[in-house]
């Protein structure tokens, strides 16, 4: 017994230590201290080949430059590139790059470095998919050509997240901890498990960063809140359960996101959800605003697709919550209310088990809220917390609470397109030939604008099947020290970490 008491005590002390980080309070007006969740710390360092910037959670790599950037409205702009074009067949991308860009070791950045970077990430990247790329090669010092295996119209979105590394100073073993780039910031110090210190790059070719020093601390949510209360951070992530609190000298910043939560409804393997009428009934019958008020304390927007508000989003996904219509659909499907209010069909009770990632309180809340609302529709619903080791398999026959949202239409493809060599999409049993064709056409399109229309057409096709039900976009919440002006934010993608500092160079301390 004593042993356990000691153990728990030690644990309290450990978490206590996290609350008193190494970072000092930055009030010098040229720097900023930002708190992120521990999961945001890049496991393999700041190497684009191992997921930095281009991994599951996409953001600007800061230390390296990219060829393109995404604009605030998520269309494409240029960083290193000065021009790009694609051949008629969509298989060759030609990109010219700007002159006079230097890596922080003084060497110039050339087309060779760009080709080297892309050939390297293609070879080694395990976190991002580069199978559509055949090879990159240089034409001259300022022009690089990408030869594709298959047409890939949204290649500019991939180019927006791949940081360019120097061929002469790239060693996969050490680059992650000692990255040399040409971006806005230089990695000054990295204390694993604690903090990352970035300093501005005086030779940066673009606008000089206003924030000269950026300190990033990695803390759990409760420790982050304590750090804010103690004035040790200038900006810290937080979530809805903390939003009701007030901290002197800080205000709450709420950033719109496409960081959505939704559930998959397997169109086979599950007796209830294999009926399209039931899937539409669930989609119609859920009151998303109530879900936002209950679980997110109001900090969220209803989600109707995986890509709300993106240029490729189709308004056809938007539906009015209508419980009567939903009940009508369930009746039409033959699921009729039984004596205890739970619907039955041929003696089978309408029952679902909704899985969610254990340890994620928002997803647990979502699942509980879903269970309540589905019960009102006459569907008996249990919830079950699972680990990611089994969640993917569970999702093949049961709804799982997912979180998605990225700055690329590729996500639509990943979720809905029939996976090569199989008869179903990757994450949930689903396949629609017509939608597949439209998405293939979108990728084969040589004009980005035109491709958006094809992505939208694919969504219209998918909306007829309702294989997923999208619930909410979770607002990203931050405590911000008064006087700190955070520059205009793009709609945040999934991941509550690096997105906020995408434009940290444009932040300002007010007067």
């Amino acid at each position: 017994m004593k042993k356990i008491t000691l153990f728990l005590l030690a644990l309290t002390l450990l978490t206590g230590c996290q609350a008193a980080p190494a970072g000092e309070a930055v009030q010098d007006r040229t720097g900023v201290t930002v708190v992120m969740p521990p999961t945001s710390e890049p496991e393999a360092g700041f190497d684009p080949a191992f997921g930095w910037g281009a991994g599951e959670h996409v953001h600007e790599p800061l230390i390296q430059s990219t060829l393109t950037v995404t604009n605030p409205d998520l269309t494409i702009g240029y960083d290193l590139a000065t021009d790009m074009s694609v051949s008629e067949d969509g298989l060759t991308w030609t990109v010219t790059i700007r002159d006079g860009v230097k890596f922080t070791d003084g060497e110039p950045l050339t087309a060779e470095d760009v080709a080297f970077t892309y050939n390297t990430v293609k070879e080694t990247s395990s976190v991002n998919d580069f199978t559509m790329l055949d090879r990159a090669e240089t034409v001259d010092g300022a022009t690089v050509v990408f030869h594709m295996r298959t047409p890939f119209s949204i290649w500019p979105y991939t180019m927006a997240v791949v940081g360019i590394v120097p061929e002469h100073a790239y060693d996969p073993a050490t680059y992650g901890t000692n990255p040399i780039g040409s971006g806005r910031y230089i990695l000054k110090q990295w204390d694993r498990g604690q903090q990352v210190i970035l300093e501005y790059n005086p030779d940066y070719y673009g606008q000089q960063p206003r924030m000269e020093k950026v300190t990033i601390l990695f803390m759990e949510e409760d420790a982050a809140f304590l750090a804010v209360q103690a004035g040790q951070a200038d900006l810290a992530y937080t979530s809805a359960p903390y939003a009701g609190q007030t901290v002197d000298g800080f205000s709450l910043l709420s950033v719109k996101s496409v960081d959505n939560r939704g559930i998959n409804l397997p169109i086979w393997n599950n007796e209830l959800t294999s009926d399209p009428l039931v899937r539409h009934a669930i989609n119609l019958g859920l009151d998303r605003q109530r879900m936002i008020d209950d679980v997110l304390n109001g900090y969220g927007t209803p989600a109707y697709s995986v890509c709300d508000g993106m240029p490729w989003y189709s308004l056809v996904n938007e539906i009015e919550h209508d419980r009567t219509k939903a009940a009508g659909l369930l009746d039409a499907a033959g699921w009729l209310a039984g004596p205890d209010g739970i619907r039955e069909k041929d003696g089978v009770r309408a029952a679902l088990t909704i899985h969610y990632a254990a340890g994620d309180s928002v997803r647990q809340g979502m699942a509980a809220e879903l269970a309540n609302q589905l019960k009102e529709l006459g569907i008996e619903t249990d919830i079950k917390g699972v680990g990611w080791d089994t969640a993917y398999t569970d999702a093949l026959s049961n709804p799982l609470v997912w979180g998605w949202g990225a700055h690329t239409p590729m996500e639509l493809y990943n979720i809905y397109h029939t996976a090569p060599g199989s008869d179903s999409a990757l994450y949930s049993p689903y396949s629609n030939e017509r939608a597949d064709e439209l998405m293939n056409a979108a990728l084969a399109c040589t004009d980005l604008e035109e491709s958006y229309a094809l992505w939208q057409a694919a969504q219209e096709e998918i909306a007829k099947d309702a294989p997923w039900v999208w619930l909410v976009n979770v607002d990203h919440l931050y405590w911000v020290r008064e006087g700190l002006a955070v520059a205009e934010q793009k709609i945040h993608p999934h991941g509550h970490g690096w997105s906020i500092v995408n434009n940290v160079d444009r932040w300002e301390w007010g007067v």
Partner: protein
Amino acid sequence: MKNRRQSTLLLLLLAGGALCAVMLAGALQPDAAADFSQKNLPPCLAHPFGTDWLGRDMLGRTLAGLSLSIRLGLLTSAVSAAAALALGTASAALGGWVDSAISWLIDLVMGVPHILLIMLISLACGRGFWGVTLGVALSHWPALARVLRGEALQLRQAPYLQMARRMGVPWGRVLTGHIVPHLLPQLWAGLILQFPHAILHEASVTFLGFGLPPEEPAIGVILSESMAYLTTGRWWLALFPGLTLAATVSLFALAGERLRLLLAPASAQE
């Protein structure tokens, strides 16, 4: 108060009764469902232990959690006591290499920190109720086994047992007729004193995320969830479940101690 024996018995019964009541109350009530209109309420008449961020009644969850803990404690204590009895007596009775092997096994299991062993076994068995049960059951027998082995070894040398052997009573009968009954007081007390260990270990391994899943109303789950909300001033989420866990564990310790006093030859006549 008539005499010490009676008051001891009374205390024992009271402790046992209280634990049974908690177990039944927790097992028979319906699951504390999420009710978002009632979320984050401090303790009040309708919810004496308050509610959490999903609006679940904490009294209900605490009772259900304690009940689960007690049932799990019962199961694991029984399994580990049985294992201890079997191994302890086998070791003493058979001697030789069997004794060496069992002693070595006891040392081995005792050499690994309990909590680590439970985590490993629980993880290997896929967590959940059975993971924790196996983890706790398979890690708690050595202490008792060692005590029983020592006792049985001593008994082996006792004159009346030597006599019985010489007169041709087979080992099996010596074991069941003489040694095991003699070990029972030790066994009962040991079994009950394993309860608090088992419960606390279940709670801590779940607290650390290697035990019961988060939708189970286990005390470890309740406590680890409450950690996230302590900084926002929701003290009731941790305080009441923690206190009741401490009370439950103390009741078991008390009951075990009383039982030992009643059964052990040295104190039974006091």
